[in-house]
């Protein structure tokens, strides 16, 4: 009898949790649903119910040169930032995992700080650096900003991967006469393939979306978020909904791709140990 009572309580408790979770999901997805819906609304943004469903805003968007220029800029920046973050983030993870040096704790904190620091502080401190060095602001300064801030992402992901890595393989490679360079490229990197690809995808999308750091380091050319920001200040148009919808769809494809890759990687790893 007692068991039954506690089960009933458990069920009512979980029903309450279920309703709460459904409400949170609704809250999280409401703006996204509105965003997508109103990209097809002939009457512009806002106004319920939406009417005159149309693709006009997508047509306007495709003819809009400045937007596409800014998309290209963002893609270039994201790619370059990804290269910088991985170039320094992967060795940083190896250093944190394997080397002992004075100031290691400070180094670790410093590398990871931009992950949690509000973008305004990272952006402004770099602005002052470039100002003192006399560097002109351009897409290059944004690349340096994103690349530096996102080292934190590469380092966290790769460091987590290193914790699971079996060092025996690297040891064997070194014993069998391969040098460190060969061992790094043939053993370490292939074993860290998943965290590295994961970090690369994450860095790429974070950089595509980033606005707080870019806000202070922008030169003549806009990235997409800054182009959108500029237009928002002038008034709102469903074109912004349309471009955001397209990017959202691309992101979803990237997530599904990454998820598949990880599932396949994990099952391959399980197959390997069997």
């Amino acid at each position: 009898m007692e068991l039954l009572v506690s089960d009933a309580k458990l069920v009512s408790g979980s029903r309450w949790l279920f309703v709460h979770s459904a409400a949170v999901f609704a809250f999280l997805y409401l703006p996204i649903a509105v965003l997508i819906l109103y990209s097809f609304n002939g009457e512009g943004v806002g106004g319920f119910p939406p009417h005159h469903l149309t693709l006009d805003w997508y047509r306007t968007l495709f003819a809009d040169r400045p937007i596409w220029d800014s998309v290209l800029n963002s893609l270039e920046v994201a790619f370059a930032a990804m290269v910088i973050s991985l170039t320094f983030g992967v060795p940083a993870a190896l250093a944190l995992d394997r080397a002992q040096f004075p100031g290691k704790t400070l180094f670790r904190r410093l590398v990871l700080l931009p992950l949690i620091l509000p973008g305004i502080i990272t952006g402004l401190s770099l602005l002052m650096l470039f100002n003192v060095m006399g560097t002109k602001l351009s897409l290059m300064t944004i690349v340096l900003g994103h690349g530096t801030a996102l080292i934190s992402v590469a380092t966290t992901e790769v460091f987590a991967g290193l914790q699971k890595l079996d060092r025996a393989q690297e040891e064997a490679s070194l014993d069998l006469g391969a040098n460190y360079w060969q061992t790094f490229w043939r053993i370490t990197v292939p074993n860290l393939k998943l965290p590295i690809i994961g970090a690369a995808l994450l860095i790429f999308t974070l950089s595509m979306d980033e606005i707080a750091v870019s806000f202070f380091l922008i030169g003549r050319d806009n990235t997409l978020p800054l182009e959108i920001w500029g237009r928002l200040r002038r008034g709102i148009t469903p074109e912004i909904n349309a471009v955001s919808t397209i990017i959202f769809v691309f992101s979803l494809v990237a997530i599904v791709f990454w998820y598949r890759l990880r599932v396949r990687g994990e099952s391959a790893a399980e197959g390997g140990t069997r």
Partner: protein
Amino acid sequence: MFSRAYKAAVTLPPLVWVTVFLLLPYLLMFCYSFWSVSESQTIVHSWNFANYGELLRVDVYWQTLLRSMWIAARVTIFSLVLGYPLAYFLSFYAGNKKDLLYQLVIIPLWVSYLVRAYAWKTILGSTGVLNTLLQYVHLTKHPLEFLLYSPFAVVLTLTHIYTPFAFLPIYAALEHIPRNLVEASHDLGATPGQTFWKVIFPLSIPGVVAGATFAFVLSLGDFLAPLLLGGPSGIMISNIVVSLFGAAYNWPLGAAISFCMLLLVVSLLVFSERLEKKWSFS
């Protein structure tokens, strides 16, 4: 196993890069905060505490800082109230749907922060989706004006943005709780409520602390949501910094405020790290 050359090769390049592009800029920010601006709008490199004195003396600075902290505190509480039960549901009741639902919490993060803030603006505006909906169903006659350009709009939007950030560490902490502890508690006669408050919740505190830190720190430094949705009463401390670096042209004073924020954030991080350690069980 790894030679000195290997260790140097993996340590030096990131060390140099981080020193030049992270440590040096923070130090420079510290230096700037002691300088001043002359009548002719040039930076004077004379060292004094005038900027910090001004921060203490002029009410608007510390009042705005307090208001920002109050906004960030509300965002933190709401994110936890929304995020914790969600994480608990996913971890303990979602069964084989767990992975799918987890992905569903993450996906909104892939829509640009700016775009989501903008979407809330189109929902909350006086001719926005919500107001026209309320009039359409005859719940209200006139648009509700308090929805947009108010601290309410800022808190709502930031809660939307940081709930997944609060959720993630809580979920990770709940997932790490050994399930046999929960079973043992049931077997020994504890009610579900007792099991939750005496076993599960205490073990999830490190996740709650990490989630709260994320939500508080990131919303404290936000300046875009207030610009977009806050109106005059929703101005936050970062907005003052932005104007000091822009139209108001007083970089040194802006640097002083930024440096105070940096100190505040770093001390919060150290404090929350302590708390997490204190409550972790492994």
